[in-house]
């Protein structure tokens, strides 16, 4: 029974495949998986929007949407209908083809990333040997669509927003990759399923998740920071800053294309949270060995939603940064820390199994965090802006 619950989606897929002739089965399997992902995550997106609005409302001491359906739970349906029937406005001088392709490319690239995420035991669409690389390759493609959207709108705010977004995403992609690399070094594989397997062990009932190691914790912190910037979420949401850029690169989009951007943004959040869960939080493995009977997909999705909650929480709490602060933070704080963390991971790898590696690695990381942090806090670093490159 436990086994069946755990594998219920896999069994379902196989049952459906069994209804088809043998020649079509492989194709059908893939199609089923794709359909599942394409249906599931937009649904999650819809749910998340209403949760976000209600959560933000709670933080701001309001009630939030409560008119459509019980407790406002049907609000996304209303939103969806609205965006579908709204007029699709394309600016007169916009570059039509590029303007049209940009949201599509974004959503497609983001959806591709889900293909390699293991969402439960045996629940991965393509178990790729270089899964992590694939994920990042797809993530890198989204930058281009953001640029396309901003440039093709022929609007200076859009263009500025796009440039900001691309610069920010490129800058934070480096620490994102670097902090993931330490996991790769320890797990010895780029395959996400293998990374989860490597964490699915227990000592005294506690899991071997990488977040429970000094380098894993440090890596997770930098990963989380980079993730927030990569998905343009608050406090790094300046590409969309309403007060400065009138919503940035998607200013000139309306109707369903705008909804696609919105969807793409949330899907990126899901996928990158899912990756973080896989890399550091043990993926679909249970947090205690005695909870092993709970289906694995449940753990994956609860961990992912927990990360989403943290995103919402941060959005409700933190103010927005300035562009130069953002760049300084990426190159002068996060990147050095990830580099230190890489070296610590090497040390961890070769120090053997004793207690020494805990002491050494923790000590080095604490010293590095404190040192770089103190140096960054120093007066003058976050002072008034100097226009170095503006003409």
């Amino acid at each position, binding site marked *: 029974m436990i086994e069946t619950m755990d594998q219920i989606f896999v069994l379902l897929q196989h049952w459906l495949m069994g209804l088809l002739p043998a020649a079509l089965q492989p194709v059908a399997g893939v199609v089923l998986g794709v359909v599942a992902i394409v249906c599931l995550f937009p649904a999650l997106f819809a749910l998340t929007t209403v949760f976000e609005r209600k959560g933000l409302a709670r933080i701001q001491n309001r009630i939030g949407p409560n008119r459509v359906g019980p407790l406002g739970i049907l609000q996304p349906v209303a939103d969806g209908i609205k965006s579908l029937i709204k007029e699709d406005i394309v600016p007169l001088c916009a*570059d039509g083809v*590029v303007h049209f392709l940009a949201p599509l490319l974004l959503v497609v690239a983001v959806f591709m990333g889900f293909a390699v995420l293991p969402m439960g035991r045996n629940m991965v669409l393509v178990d790729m040997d270089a899964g992590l690389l*694939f994920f*990042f390759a797809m993530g890198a*493609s989204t930058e*281009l669509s953001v640029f396309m959207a901003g*440039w093709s709108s022929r609007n200076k705010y859009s263009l500025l927003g796009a440039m900001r977004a691309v610069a920010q995403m*490129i800058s934070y992609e480096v620490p994102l990759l670097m902090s993931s690399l330490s996991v790769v070094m320890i797990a010895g*594989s780029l395959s996400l399923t293998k990374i989860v397997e490597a964490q699915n062990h227990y000592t005294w009932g506690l899991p071997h998740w990488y977040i429970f190691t000094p380098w894993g914790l440090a890596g997770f912190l930098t990963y989380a920071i980079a993730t927030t910037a990569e998905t343009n979420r608050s406090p790094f949401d300046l590409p969309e800053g309403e007060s400065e850029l009138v919503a940035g690169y998607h200013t000139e989009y309306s109707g369903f294309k705008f909804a696609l951007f919105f969807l793409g943004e949330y899907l990126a959040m899901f996928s990158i949270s899912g990756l973080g869960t896989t890399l550091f939080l043990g993926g679909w493995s249970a947090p205690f060995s005695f909870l092993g009977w709970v289906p694995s997909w449940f753990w994956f999705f609860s961990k992912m939603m927990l990360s989403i909650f943290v995103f919402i929480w941060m959005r409700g709490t933190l103010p927005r940064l300035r562009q130069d602060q953002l760049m300084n933070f990426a190159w002068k704080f996060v990147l050095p820390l990830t580099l230190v963390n890489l070296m610590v991971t090497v040390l961890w790898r070769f120090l053997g199994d004793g207690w020494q590696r805990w002491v050494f690695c923790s000590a080095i990381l604490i010293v590095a965090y404190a040192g770089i942090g103190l140096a960054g806090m120093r007066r003058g670093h976050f002072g008034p802006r100097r226009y170095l490159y503006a*003409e």
Partner: protein
Amino acid sequence: MNWAFYLIAALTVAGGLAAVLLKNTVHCALALTVAFAGLALFFLQLDAQFAGFAQILVYIGAVAILIVFAILLTRGSETPKGSVFSRNWLAGLAIAAGVFAVLGWAVLHSASVLPHETAAPTVTVLQIGNALMGRYVLPLEIVALLLTAALIGAVIVALHEKEGSR
């Protein structure tokens, strides 16, 4: 030689052609990314998964972005009024055609001695990693050095000199 090959080849060549023929520079850059993507698909078809993903990550994720940044920074994003081709474009075209003729002729004439269909090699990322860290560790280090040097060099070259500092 299946339909996938022809499809990808058509995509890639079309992307490449568009990249050199279109008037608007940004369109050229975007067409170039199409060609890059086609090449990545070729790499996947050739069982070089790692190289394919690296191609996407490096070319689409970094080089294409660099190119569009450079276009915007040099104010080249507007469609130019006059000719986009240089004065001697005919000579250039002739030479390029000559090169293609010679290369194609050479390839077709040596088709008989080229190796035929072989079994797909199974290359895991682990093997690539071991090769990179073992046999190819020296080139790897040199490339790392080169990239560092290029990073610093590009920053210095592109760094704006303040007026009067010279």
